[in-house]
């Protein structure tokens, strides 16, 4: 069988940007018509209740009850025994890991982390890790960090065990890739609240269930980036190996995996970041304590502690991120050029690392550092008091800052968000449906328009039209703001190395700091609903978009840029006329991933006052009602697909990958 991929002839794209000029005018006309209808018949026709599938929600409730009965019956069937085995195995794995770190003592674990990073990732990364361990001790959160780390470690390993083979398959087969992409999208968009109860019924509570919940969110990046890596292996190298008669397995083991190595390590690193952003939700069904429950409980009883725990999550994320990235860079054989001499020296270094770790564990035991670790840094009480005073300032409505922020918040809602929301919710449903379908048709073509229509119809049928339109109005605002923020920043990051180094840690923080931790202070500053939810969405989605835009612009070949410069183009001209148009694909992928990310925090929005579908999910599931939450999640998913199709434009079929 031929391994060389046969690409279908690519149809040349229309040369100029002319297409959208007149289309945008038409879209404007459609919107204008909608506004007129809204003014005339607002609140006239909602989604007809005859067209609602009312029994869906109850049916789902019954399903959950059935599941629970099955699980508790005296003779559980095989499926449940298997699932039970899995969760017990996972429980054991996580507690084994936690015990291991415990037994190594703080000093030993620190030495393990730092020295391994030092050996494979270099000094800078080693310092990052060292700083992280010191800060855990200084914050007095070592025990919780160990719990969380053990959980994350297990979740990440398993995500990779599951995700990488799937990614390899997706990288080698277009059909598989097409089949799995919507599944991955769904895994990332459907809020965890929606499947928390079924997971608990199937896997009980505990570390096992927490690992599985985390995996649902962290497997997709592993699959996507692995596939991207496999696809990125130079075609001519693959072809050369095929011409030499390599089997599929040989191709994979000797050519594709080694050459995709860097991307594979990037997928490890992204899987870690995604897993860490699930810490809080996983904490809701975990029996052990950890940073997640510190955040959840701290929000009500001790916000300063919640803030500290959030900071610990971020520090963990950033240090692991830096460490894995440095390891990926430094151990790349294509760059390292390992000769026998170097190899010998590396072996010595490895041995020394092992010995030093052993020594540190010994010292740990000798000094009883297992319990005395907190003496390393300052007092956590002192830290908490400091944080609390900062929070007190934020919570005080008589400060100057408050007068500004509350004014901004109030006006944003009163004159921007509220009217827009009313427009979406109150325009007669059939008209809105027709209008949005028409816009999809104009911007993206027939097929996307049909899809948009179908998805909006699904939303109506499951009975979520009102909430979905409410959410849609906010998602659109968030998306537009994300683009306004992220696009120029992405360009700037691509253009300036200094900006890139400054921005990067901020992006990491935004991706991993639990939203509620930074949103609650926001609510004090801008006491008006909707705004915090939109802020959450913008802050969570921007990092991904910034990274994609920056990567796209950086990848524009120097030749093209040079050619433009040779014609005497200024820097701005090069940017506007060469780089940005050429980075169009990456930018469109950015829009698409932006949609996914914005939707991924809809539930968080529900928890900070955005209402809409997010509130429905949180309400339904925390009430233990399976049906309404799943229905609302379905609506979120449908909304996501519809938005993706409307904004897709007439670009080529969607590219893959995360960032």
């Amino acid at each position, binding site marked *: 069988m031929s391994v060389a991929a046969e690409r279908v002839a690519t149809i040349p794209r229309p040369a100029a940007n002319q297409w959208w000029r007149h289309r945008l005018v038409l879209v404007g006309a459609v919107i204008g018509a909608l506004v007129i209808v809204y003014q005339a018949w607002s609140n006239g026709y909602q989604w007809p209740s005859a067209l609602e599938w009312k029994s869906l929600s109850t049916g789902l409730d019954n399903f959950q009850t059935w599941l629970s009965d099955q699980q508790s019956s005296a003779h559980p069937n095989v499926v449940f025994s298997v699932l039970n085995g899995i969760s017990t195995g996972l429980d054991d794995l996580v507690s084994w890991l936690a015990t291991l770190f415990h037994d190594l003592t703080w000093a030993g674990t620190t030495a393990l982390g730092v020295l391994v990073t030092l050996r494979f990732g270099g000094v800078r990364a080693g310092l990052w890790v060292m700083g992280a361990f010191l800060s855990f001790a200084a914050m007095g959160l070592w025990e919780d960090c160990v719990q969380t780390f053990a959980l994350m470690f297990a979740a990440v390993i398993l995500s990779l065990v599951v995700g990488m083979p799937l990614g390899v398959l997706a990288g080698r087969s277009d059909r598989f890739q097409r089949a799995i992409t919507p599944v991955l999208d769904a895994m990332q968009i459907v809020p965890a609240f929606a499947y928390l109860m079924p997971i608990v019924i199937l896997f*009980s509570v505990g570390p096992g269930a927490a690992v599985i919940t985390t995996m649902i969110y962290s497997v997709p990046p592993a699959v996507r980036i692995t596939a991207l890596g496999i696809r990125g292996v130079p075609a001519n190298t693959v072809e050369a190996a095929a011409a030499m008669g390599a089997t599929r397995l040989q191709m994979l083991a000797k050519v594709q995996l080694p050459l995709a190595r860097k991307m594979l390590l990037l997928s490890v690193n992204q899987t870690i970041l995604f897993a860490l952003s699930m810490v809080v939700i996983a904490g809701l069904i975990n029996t052990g304590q950890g940073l997640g429950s510190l955040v959840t409980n701290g929000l009500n*009883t001790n916000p300063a502690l919640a803030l500290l725990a959030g900071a610990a999550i971020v520090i963990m994320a950033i240090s692991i991120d830096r460490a894995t990235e440095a390891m990926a860079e430094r151990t790349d054989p294509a760059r390292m050029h390992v000769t026998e001499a170097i190899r010998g020296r590396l072996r010595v270094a490895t041995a020394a690392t092992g010995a030093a770790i052993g020594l540190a564990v010994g010292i740990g035991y000798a000094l009883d550092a297992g319990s005395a670790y907190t003496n390393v840094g300052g007092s956590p009480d002192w830290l908490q008091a400091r944080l609390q005073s900062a929070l007190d300032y934020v919570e005080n*409505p008589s400060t100057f800052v408050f007068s500004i922020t509350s004014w901004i918040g109030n006006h944003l809602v009163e004159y921007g968000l509220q009217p827009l929301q009313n427009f979406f919710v109150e325009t007669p449903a059939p008209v809105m449906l027709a209008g949005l379908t028409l816009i999809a048709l104009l911007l993206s073509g027939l097929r996307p328009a049909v899809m948009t229509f179908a998805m909006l119809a699904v939303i109506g049928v499951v009975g979520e039209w009102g909430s979905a339109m409410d959410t849609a109005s906010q998602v659109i605002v968030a998306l537009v703001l994300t683009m306004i923020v992220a696009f120029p920043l992405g360009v700037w990051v691509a253009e300036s190395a200094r900006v890139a180094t400054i921005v990067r840690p901020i992006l990491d923080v935004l991706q991993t700091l639990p939203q509620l931790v930074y949103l609650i202070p926001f609510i004090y500053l801008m006491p008006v609903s909707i705004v915090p939810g939109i802020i959450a969405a913008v802050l969570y989605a921007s990092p991904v978009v910034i990274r994609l835009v920056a990567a796209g612009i950086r990848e524009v070949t120097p030749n093209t840029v040079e050619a433009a410069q040779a014609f005497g183009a200024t820097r701005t001209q090069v940017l506007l006329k060469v780089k940005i148009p050429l980075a169009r694909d990456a930018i469109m992928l950015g829009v698409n991933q932006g949609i996914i990310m914005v939707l991924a925090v809809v539930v968080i929005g529900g928890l900070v*006052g955005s209402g809409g579908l997010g509130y429905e999910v949180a309400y339904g599931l925390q009430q233990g009602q399976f049906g309404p939450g799943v229905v609302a999640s379905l609506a979120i998913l449908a909304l996501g697909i519809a938005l993706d199709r409307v904004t897709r434009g007439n670009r080529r079929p969607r590219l893959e990958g995360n960032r």
Partner: protein
Amino acid sequence: MTRHLPRRSRLLLPLLVLALGAAAFAAVGSATAGAKSCGTVTLNEQAWAGSTANTYVTKYVLEHNLGCKVNITQIAEVPVYQAMADGKTDAVLEDWGHVDQQKQYVTKQKTVVMIGPNGVTGLIGWYIPDYLMKQYPQFKTWKGLKGKETIFKSPESGSQGMFLGGDPSYQQKDRTLIKALGLNLKFVSVGAEAAQVARWTQLYKQHKPVLFYWYDPQYLNATYKLDMVQLPKRFKGCRDDEKQGGDPKLYACAYPTYTLEKLFSKKFATSGSPAVKFLKKWSWTNADQSLVASYIAGDHMSPDKAAEKWVKANPKVVKKWLT
């Protein structure tokens, strides 16, 4: 020190240490054995301060008076039923009445047992700040709100007044109530409890009008002076059970007072551990709970220290629990 010892003693010393250690171990073992081994008890702490107070006070007593080892889980309110069914958590000390779960796990599966009230009565209702009540005494009952709704206007409520909804995970039926009572209010949810608190305390500090879903016991009620707006006991349009349509003859409107329940897992309830007896007996008042909760959430005392402080100050109550 060892340097000055003769060679033979150097060998003896570790042996001596070992022997002493073994003896100490045996002594401890017999001490706990005498109290009929309590073993490990797993309590679930929920995300509000009152629950933390319950959990840590009982933990203190279990550990110090009964020699139990106490684990604390922090599982969300609904999944914790399954946790008890699976025997991963032994007890929940404060449940605010989850009808569906109780039907499933207590009545049908019999994997969770209801033990009885924990002594605290829960009040849910519509609250306004005291300064507002002073200004508008007619707000004592819901009728006084009629026609005055717009003073609760906010940016997101448009021309209507704003009703600030509670945490989506809490028991509530405010949307139905507003509709049934025909009030010109817009239900605005600001989400999780921390967010809702942020919202109304901010308005409170500015002495602005605010009407919101709230409950008692709550440690913040000690800091902020709040009054309840009386809702009608019966009113046409209200339903007993929003979800199932309710019995049309029973138009219950106001929230009932909740007797907060203790729940045990079946496994724990039948284990015969001395902890079962104690926890069955354990109950306290709203005031007690609020006091401990305010130590924890208001003064940011560590829960263990707060529990210790309260137990030391209330030896009589504790003694009653243990008899």
